[in-house]
């Protein structure tokens, strides 16, 4: 089955998720939304709920829809969380029994409060930034335990440990397949680009795990000896930043249209963290917490982290033969802006070009002109340097 056919099929299945959830709700299964990968959706499902990742973005109207309630100085992805609901474009939250919001920063924090004000049942899971302290990890674990208690109250069931283990096995398998697909992107002319990878990542949150594993396996086997998809001299780009949300696909598309190929990424949200698998023996909740909080490249808000993240970026630049780094930042994301300042200082004498793109999800005709010029100029200057 060709890559396009697999993607089309997964796209169709992903879009059907809202209907599936509606049906599940009618049959008495609670729906629990969650906002990111610090939340163990496997455990929530093993307690008898259906889950849904709240990570939609890429449109300008939802962030603006919350401006009656707050200043605009919150990143547009966080604002979209409440904005889609405000505009009546969120079919999931109205039927959710609870939204589990990982409290990684003040942007999500403020939006969580807005959702509470709107009468949504919010469960806040604390993710402290000072991750090297034992007490911070204990706090996160405790926060997860309290969250699971609330889940079990909603579902009326305890977590089925055997089922949870199965769900984690499948998630680990999906991550393994993404790692294998990423190895293919190390090739001189990769057979798959970031546009496909980010779509696959997003589908993996909505499509049944068994189907996802089957399709990713098919795709990998299809691509292992497939020819490259890009021009032979296409500049190789690493993209780093907070997130490409579901629906926020303009920038990756423009990069590829300009003749570049995104071969690697370091993103904090909207993707599965695939570096290491969740350990399956022992306390699954603690294993999960370790995997997300300690055993991977820290996210931007975790401190100290930026030098570790820079080491990761250097490793990706080397392994994926990266020509340029695109720092993709959302408007008003001040902590990412601060990290960029450090990164640009550290990279100033490097051969690898760095460019920052800031998005407020404004993709009007007027905004597309400068955006296209920036991306095309970046790609062209990388081509000249090759």
């Amino acid at each position, binding site marked *: 089955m060709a890559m396009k056919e697999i993607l089309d099929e997964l796209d169709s299945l992903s879009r059907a998720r809202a209907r599936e959830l509606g049906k599940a709700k009618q049959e008495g299964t609670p729906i629990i939304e969650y906002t990111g990968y610090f939340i163990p959706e496997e455990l929530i499902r093993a307690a008898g709920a259906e889950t849904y990742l709240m990570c939609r973005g890429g449109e300008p109207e939802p962030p603006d829809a919350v401006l009656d309630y707050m200043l605009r100085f919150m990143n547009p992805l966080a604002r979209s969380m409440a904005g889609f609901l405000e505009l009546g474009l969120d079919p999931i939250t109205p039927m959710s029994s609870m939204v589990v919001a990982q409290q990684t920063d003040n942007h999500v924090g403020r939006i969580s409060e807005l959702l509470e004000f709107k009468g949504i049942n919010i469960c806040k899971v604390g993710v402290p930034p000072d991750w090297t302290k034992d007490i911070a990890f204990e706090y996160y674990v405790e926060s997860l335990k309290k969250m699971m208690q609330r889940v079990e109250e909603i579902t009326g069931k305890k977590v089925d440990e055997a089922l949870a283990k199965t769900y984690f096995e499948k998630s680990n398998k999906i991550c393994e397949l993404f790692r294998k697909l990423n190895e293919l992107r190390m090739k001189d002319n990769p057979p798959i680009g970031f546009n496909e990878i980010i779509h696959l990542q997003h589908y993996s949150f909505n499509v049944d795990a068994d189907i996802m594993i089957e399709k990713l396996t098919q795709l990998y086997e299809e691509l292992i000896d497939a020819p490259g998809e890009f021009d032979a001299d296409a500049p190789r780009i690493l993209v780093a930043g907070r997130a490409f949300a579901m629906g926020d696909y303009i920038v990756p598309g423009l990069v590829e249209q300009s003749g570049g190929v995104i071969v690697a990424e370091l993103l904090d949200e909207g993707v599965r963290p695939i570096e290491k698998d969740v350990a399956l023996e022992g306390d699954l909740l603690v294993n999960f917490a370790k995997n997300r909080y300690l055993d991977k490249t820290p996210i931007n808000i975790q401190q100290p982290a930026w030098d570790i993240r820079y080491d990761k970026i250097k490793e990706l630049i080397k392994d994926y033969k990266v020509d340029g780094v695109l720092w993709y930042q959302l408007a008003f994301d001040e902590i990412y802006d601060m990290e960029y300042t450090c990164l*640009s*200082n550290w990279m*100033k004498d490097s051969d690898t*070009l*760095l*460019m*920052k793109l800031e998005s407020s999800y404004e993709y009007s005709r*007027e*905004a597309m*002109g*400068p955006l*296209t*010029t*920036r991306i*095309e*100029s970046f790609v*062209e*200057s990388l081509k*000249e*340097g090759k």
Partner: protein
Amino acid sequence: MLFAGVDIGSTTSKCVLIDENKEEKMYRHIMTGFNRDASGNEVLEMALKAVGANESEIACIVSTGYGRKAFKKAQKDIPEIIAHAEGTKAIVPDVRTIIDIGGQDSKVIAIAEDGTVSKFEMNDKCAAGTGRFFEVLTHRLLGVEMDELSDLIMKAKDPIEISSMCTIFAESEIISHLSQGKPVEDIAAGTGYSIARRIIQQGKAGRIPFDEPIIFSGGVANNEGITKIFEKLLGKKVTAISNPQSTAAYGAALRAMREYNKQDK
């Protein structure tokens, strides 16, 4: 054989024709109309007519500027950052920084030692720091034509600080200074400092070191007073390129020649 570079900007459209020796044969510019393809055609035809040639003599056309994709006759389009870099390097081979201020946008481009673009910064959705800023503030409020502005700025004894970055708020400040009877030349120089500071900040935000030689291009580079202000603020030599509005079109024409020679091989 001719090669054409057509720069369809937001305010003006420019065309440069060069021959196979890279010599500029003709330059023409017009105000960009609402139909960018038509503007590209019009300025191309003007340039051809001026040199007594017709379109069949053009081996390759490359477009640039915001309207570049609309110009159907172009065989290729390149972003204006690249076109500026290419055009400026051809005239000043050891250029390291380009400051370009056009009608509605401004750019700072850092050129590496190997001649490639290493960094760039552009203004975004804001008229502050562009030729438009000057037009609104000096032409409309001070009643001074753009070509008189340079002499006026050079006469200033005590430039007045215009603190607002926003064109709209700066207008209020200028009106206030005028009502207090402040010298027009000091106000004009103040707007010059305001623009220059904004551009320098823009570049520094992008970690552009403003290495020399620094070349100033775009319509505002016709203003010697602004060039002097940049020199004062940077503490470095800044040189306004000759025919500063044509640089991007010239760069596009050079790219046209390069593309043609690549195909020819």
